[in-house]
């Protein structure tokens, strides 16, 4: 692979102003495809979810999925868009075997939603408004597997194998207006936008928007113009950037690449580019076809969609609290910093903490367990936090036992370990493992007496006013009780017995 010339990010920004356009495809979570009743369930056998309509067989007719249209309107409303009162589908004609019809059913100049915006919050709390050009309905393509090739099989015959289970799954394509004025923060804005959009889609319940499963995919259009000028430069379109981190890296790489080309007197070629996860680079793909090459025309087999204003208002009334607003509310309720809230969001812990608080835990404890012990375990096991075999109710119970003084942190960690190991509910684990804090004052008092007797020199220091030295005695008692004592109570007892004020 040839090495692409880059200039440093700082040098690129010193001379040029980036303009971005982001196109995000969201696969809706409907039960059936957009234009036929085939199932969209994952994991089916190849070509087990097709029918004459999604295979494009002669005589078949598409009928639009009502939930697909409803989801599109919800997305449009959540993005502050105008909802078209009448719009049509269009055929986007192209010859590639991923669509057996030889066209993709999409929308062209009449998108169902247009002219909106999404406010995104950067990590330091700054809010950046991204304007939305349109959101339109279309369908996904089939899945190709390319076989053979130069290093392929003996016969070397290059061919592709097509599975059309995915062909026809509803997609909403969301296109931003050119994003200007982000300057050096452009890659960060791109990432924050996709992250916010993902949260929004999830909050609307229209898709799980899992990027790693291809349920949400992003194309990054980027161009540079010399600082202080208005006219947009020639853009490149980096396709299928499929993680939040990659969105940021792709934008950054393209800024550095464009700047290198432009500053050496070269011209940017308008083309699609492929993003490489391994090193964050992009390489050229095909030269972009012109829109007229798709020969769009109104889809005659589907009648226009004309959402009544009543329906639109009904749907507007069902919109949930926007994720950014909700996060800010929770951040205040929980009393955490922007940075901590961002970590909680990145860890996928927001809803878990909310559920734990709803189950009776206080916010600080809920946050502590999910972001501490449990985040560490999820990380070790390479699973998402929500996938750990422990429920918010169970975590709340652990927090409650700690708050009541029945468990200390050390024991609580063992309880959590037991729950994760499938030993049962927190109470069962406490019972089975015998993890109660020693609260028997008599037994504790004996242990304290023993510790004082065994550490006379330290005890004298404490009597002499060096209260900090009590820690060593607390440690000795904790050791003697195998960690099952309440450390705060132990400390109280030690100071009491030595006649010192705490």
């Amino acid at each position: 692979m040839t090495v692409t010339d880059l200039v440093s990010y700082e040098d690129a920004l010193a001379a040029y102003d980036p303009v971005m356009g982001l196109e995000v495809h969201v696969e809706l979570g409907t039960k059936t495809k957009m234009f036929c009743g085939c199932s969209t369930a994952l994991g089916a056998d190849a070509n087990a979810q097709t029918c004459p309509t999604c295979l494009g067989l002669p005589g078949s007719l598409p009928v639009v999925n009502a939930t697909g249209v409803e989801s599109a309107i919800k997305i449009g409303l959540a993005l502050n868009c105008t909802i078209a009162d009448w719009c049509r589908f269009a055929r986007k004609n192209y010859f590639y075997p991923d669509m057996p019809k030889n066209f993709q059913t999409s929308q062209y100049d009449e998108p169902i939603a247009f002219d909106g915006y999404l406010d995104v919050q950067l990590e330091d709390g700054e809010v950046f408004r991204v304007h939305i050009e349109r959101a339109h309905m279309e369908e996904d393509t089939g899945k190709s597997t390319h076989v053979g090739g130069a290093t392929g099989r003996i016969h070397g015959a290059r061919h592709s194998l097509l599975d059309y289970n995915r062909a026809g799954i509803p997609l909403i394509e969301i296109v931003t207006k050119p994003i200007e004025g982000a300057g050096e923060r452009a890659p960060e804005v791109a990432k924050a936008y996709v992250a916010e959009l993902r949260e929004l889609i999830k909050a609307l319940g229209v898709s799980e928007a899992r990027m790693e499963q291809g349920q949400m995919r992003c194309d990054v259009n980027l161009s540079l113009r010399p600082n202080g000028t208005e006219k947009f430069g020639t853009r490149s379109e980096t396709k299928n950037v499929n993680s939040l981190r990659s969105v940021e890296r792709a934008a950054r790489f393209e800024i550095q690449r464009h700047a290198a080309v432009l500053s050496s007197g070269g011209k940017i070629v308008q083309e699609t580019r492929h993003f490489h996860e391994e090193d964050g680079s992009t390489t050229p793909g095909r030269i972009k076809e012109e829109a007229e090459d798709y020969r769009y025309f109104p889809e005659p087999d589907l009648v226009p969609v004309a959402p009544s204003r009543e329906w639109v208002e009904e749907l507007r009334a069902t919109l949930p609290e926007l994720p950014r607003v909700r996060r800010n509310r929770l951040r205040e309720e929980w009393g955490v910093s922007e940075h901590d809230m961002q970590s909680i969001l990145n860890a996928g812990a927001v809803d878990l903490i909310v559920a734990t608080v709803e189950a009776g835990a206080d916010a600080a404890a809920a946050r502590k367990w999910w972001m501490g012990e449990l985040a560490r375990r999820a990380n070790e096991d390479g699973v998402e936090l929500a996938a750990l075999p422990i429920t918010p109710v169970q975590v709340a119970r652990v927090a409650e036992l700690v708050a009541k003084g029945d468990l200390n942190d050390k024991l609580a960690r063992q309880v959590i370990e037991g729950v994760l190991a499938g030993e049962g509910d927190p109470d069962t684990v406490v019972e089975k493992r015998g993890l109660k804090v020693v609260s028997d004052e008599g037994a504790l008092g004996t242990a304290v007496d023993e510790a004082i007797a065994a550490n006379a020199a330290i005890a004298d220091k404490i009597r002499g006013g060096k209260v900090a030295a009590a820690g060593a005695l607390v440690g000795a008692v904790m050791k003697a009780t195998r960690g099952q004592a309440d450390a705060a109570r132990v400390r109280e007892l030690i100071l009491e017995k030595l006649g010192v004020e705490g």
Partner: protein
Amino acid sequence: MPGITREEVAHLARLARLELKDEELDHFATQLDDIIGAVARVSEVADQDVPPTSHPLPLTNVMRPDEVRPSLTPEQALSGAPAQEQQRFKVPQILGEE
């Protein structure tokens, strides 16, 4: 008068992945130009007040509930495929793609 040039026919043929010989291009360009010319006569009678019609019936919002209906079996789906492999449609590699 709208029409179509030989170059445009060649371009469309490429988009449609049709291989046309020189004499075919001449032949089809002439024919298509005639056809387009004939169809274009519609606009002579349709004035500004007649919008282009894509759907002759005044129907909107024909939708179906999001309920799964039986699909074809993979065998049925593949029964018309000229070639298949691993329960998938087998097609020639398209040149110029990765």
